[in-house]
């Protein structure tokens, strides 16, 4: 059992029991030169992941990173684990094959907003729906970086890019709401430059049994610099990050503001002083999905106060385990497969 630091103990997703972490960041760092643009948010995420993996107690030999195409896709090469850098958008499908074939492995997917939500949207939603035991880290920088700056499915309306010189007329996805809509069993959001929060969320994602979806706001300082400044940067971040913690009232902005239940049951952002204390929402990751869904919609994007942390965490049957169980059941019921018998099944006749 692992203490998830959120007040309750549990989860046997990817964290083996009773393992003492004797590994270090170095054990997870490959010899490949890291080639993202200087200043890219990906560096911080890589450092956090490499730094946090040893505490999971899973050997790098039993860990697989799978990625797609985009700047995030390179992540795989920098981890000294097993890894596959697949094709655009297909990482969740590749990882489904790996995690289902080998439930003993710790399987991670690193993807981006274009990779996961545009070309790979179908694979993402189905991996989450099936609840495959994979940990999906989606770096959301709200832009296409590797192809040099086109708008992405999370770019805001009106976004001016090379492919939208007059502004984008596309409505963006709300990735958290999308994941919740698939009935994903673990949905969270964190920030690239908040090492502590990022690590905490990763820890919970890893401990979760089944599919974990973690959106990481990631600054692309070349093509979309400052997209998350309101939340990331020091002075204003304090005022605009709405940190979700299970079992606690949702307060932010140095406890001056809160999320409360307004008229006709809608969630609103309000000054603590302006609302009745019993209308302040207490976060519940295991409760009804409607709360998580409402929290996902409290802002229209990272240009307003926005929720970060774990939105939802529930238990559901895990896909690979269910498949293994069927194989076991079939073997018990029908006996272990006998090839000779199989080939001789049905009506046969003998010619002598």
């Amino acid at each position, binding site marked *: 059992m692992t203490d998830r630091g959120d007040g309750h103990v549990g989860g046997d997703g990817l964290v083996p029991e009773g393992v003492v972490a004797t590994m270090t960041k170095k054990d997870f760092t490959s010899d*490949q030169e890291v080639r993202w643009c200087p200043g890219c948010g990906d560096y911080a995420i890589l450092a956090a992941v490499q730094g946090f993996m040893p505490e999971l107690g899973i*050997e*790098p*030999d*039993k*860990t*697989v*990173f*799978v*990625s797609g195409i985009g700047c995030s896709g390179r992540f*795989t*090469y920098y*981890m*000294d*684990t*097993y*890894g*596959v*850098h*697949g*094709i655009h958008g*297909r990482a969740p*499908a*590749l*990882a*489904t*094959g*790996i995690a*289902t*074939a*080998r439930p*003993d*492995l710790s399987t991670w997917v690193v993807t981006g907003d274009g990779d996961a939500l545009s070309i790979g949207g*179908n*694979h993402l*939603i*189905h991996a989450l729906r099936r609840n495959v035991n994979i940990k999906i880290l989606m770096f959301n920088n709200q832009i296409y970086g590797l192809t040099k700056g086109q708008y992405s499915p999370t770019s805001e309306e009106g976004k001016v890019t090379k492919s939208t010189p007059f502004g984008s007329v596309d409505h963006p996805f709300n990735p958290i709401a999308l994941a919740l809509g698939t009935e994903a069993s673990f949905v969270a959001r964190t920030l690239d430059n908040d090492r502590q929060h990022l690590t905490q969320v990763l820890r919970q994602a890893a401990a979760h049994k089944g599919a974990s979806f973690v959106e990481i706001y990631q600054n692309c300082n070349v093509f979309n610099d400052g997209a998350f400044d309101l939340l990331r940067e020091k002075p204003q971040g304090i005022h605009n990050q709405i940190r979700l913690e299970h079992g606690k009232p949702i307060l932010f902005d140095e406890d001056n503001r809160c999320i409360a239940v307004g008229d006709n049951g809608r969630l609103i952002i309000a000054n603590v002083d302006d609302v009745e204390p019993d209308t302040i929402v207490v976060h519940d990751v295991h409760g009804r999905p409607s709360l998580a869904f409402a929290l996902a919609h409290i802002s229209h994007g990272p240009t307003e106060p926005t929720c970060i942390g774990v939105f939802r965490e529930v238990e559901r049957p895990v896909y690979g385990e269910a*498949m293994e169980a*069927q*194989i076991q*059941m*079939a*073997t018990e*019921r029908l*006996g*272990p*497969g006998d*090839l*000779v018998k*199989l*080939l*001789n*099944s*049905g*009506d*046969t*006749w*003998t*010619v*002598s």
Partner: protein
Amino acid sequence: MPKTVQEKEHVVIRFAGDSGDGMQLTGDRFTNATAVLGNDLATLPDFPAEIRAPAGTVHGVSAFQIQFASEDVTTPGDHPNVLVAMNPAALKAELDSVEKGGTIIVNEDAFIQRNLEKAGYTSDPLADGTLEAYQVYKVPMTAITLRATEHLGITKRDAERSKNMFALGLVSWMYGRPTDVTLNWLESKFGGKKQILEANVAAFKAGYNFGETTELFATTYKVKPAPARPGTYRNVAGAQALAYGLVAASHQAGVPLFYASYPITPASELLHELSRLKNFGVRTLQAEDEIAAANVALGASFAGLLGVTGTSGPGMDLKAETMGLAVALELPMVIVDVQRAGPSTGLPTKTEQGDLLLSMFGRHGESPMPIVAPYSPANCFDAAIEACRIAVKYRTPVILLSDTFLSNSSEPWLIPDVGSLPAIDPNFAAGPNAGDEFMPYLRDEHLARPWAVPGTPGLRHRIGGLEKEDGTGDISYEAANHERMTHLRAAKVEKIADDIPPLPVDDPDGDAELLILGWGSSSGTIRAAARRVRRQGKKVATAHLFHLNPLPRNAGDVVTAYPKVLIPEMNMGQLALLIRGRFLVDARSFTKVQGQPIFADELEAEILKVIG
């Protein structure tokens, strides 16, 4: 009444009726009784594309054809000698294919005004002379079935539904088929539903006795067992043989099979077959789309399982991207393409061989893949094992090109001895291969790279679609390295030719002027047509390609050894294009793209034209 018995060498029967009439089942059961009797046989089911086409219309006709004989049968037959037509639409749809003077058995009760109209008849073909050239038996199948089942207290609808068993009983009597095979099957199928079982048995027996007792039928026919190699046989359809072959390959390799697929006609059969075999450790996954299915299979292979995906043409288009990745990753994987008629949705339930060039070249960049093509339903078993063997030994994706005809058709199969199946050694990497280092792209004598599965201590490595440095597998954008890797990937596939048997040629006198070269499901037609022209004293040679890429080492010698080469295909001449381009021979193409097999008489005529 006493009947005369007439001996026949071969018979072609076509059962046709409305989709809801159970004609596939009837054909299937007749086939099994025929197989058990020891006749050689070949079958061809022919279903409508619509699941529920309007009842009684020509679009809704479902048919099943079987040829059985006391000699070697190579095709389901060109023209039925006997047509069983359960309604006017079936008669209308099938009459043209029946041999002139052939036998037509109709369910007379179905020839009522409303059904005639639905079938598009303006007058009753049973009365207006349409069938003058045929021997027609009008049998009130519905009425007799109802009478035979009335004591069972079942609904009229259920009783009527047993009329296909009446037809089966009647034809079984005509051709002296054993009744116990069918009765035992009914028992095992409907044992739990007593009334339905009894109704079917009663209808079957009524049909059988109707033949025996009425004066309508004066003759029964006898087809003696065909000479066959000693051993135990069963009847097998292509889809089933393919599923068994994949399971056998997994067994031989000691590696669990992981089959991921998206539902598509006609490849879904394979998913259904394999999904039943979970006690063989078979993992099946119905993916969200064709692309996912391919990626799941490839992921499973990376993880150390035998990853297989299956589809038909439209799905092949979508899987091309993943096949390219598999070529770059150099991992074992098998992609089954049960070809159907295209382009696009085309004729989803009809057969074609249109995906050969797609399989050869249908990926961007230089991305060679081995191709194996079964030539008969039972041969799908061997093709599956061979595709897996090549995939595992050479760490490469392999395409297995089946087709609708092979998948649906069946034939007797001499059940192979499991002990004699080829060995497949996964040869998983267990330790470093370059001093203390592990280099994922260091190759063995077959140019195959190590298969190092996650969890193996010390062999951690990262691979991907980006070009890799020879040996280390690190990302490399270096010009000379890319050229070297491109050549290595091509050479690896090419070298498989050292590991496959030479192309066998059937040239009885050794001096034929014409070689008929084929691949895939046209094998039966080619053998039948060759037999016919040889009986006329003509000399022709035949050869059939099982490996399409690489070709057997002697393929060039074979095609250049004959003054004339004829290549019959159910496409616009795809193998012909390859053979002409590769060996600079003036191969002629004979093509048919009607969604159905080439008939032996069509090919016979073409051969006679070519050799003059």
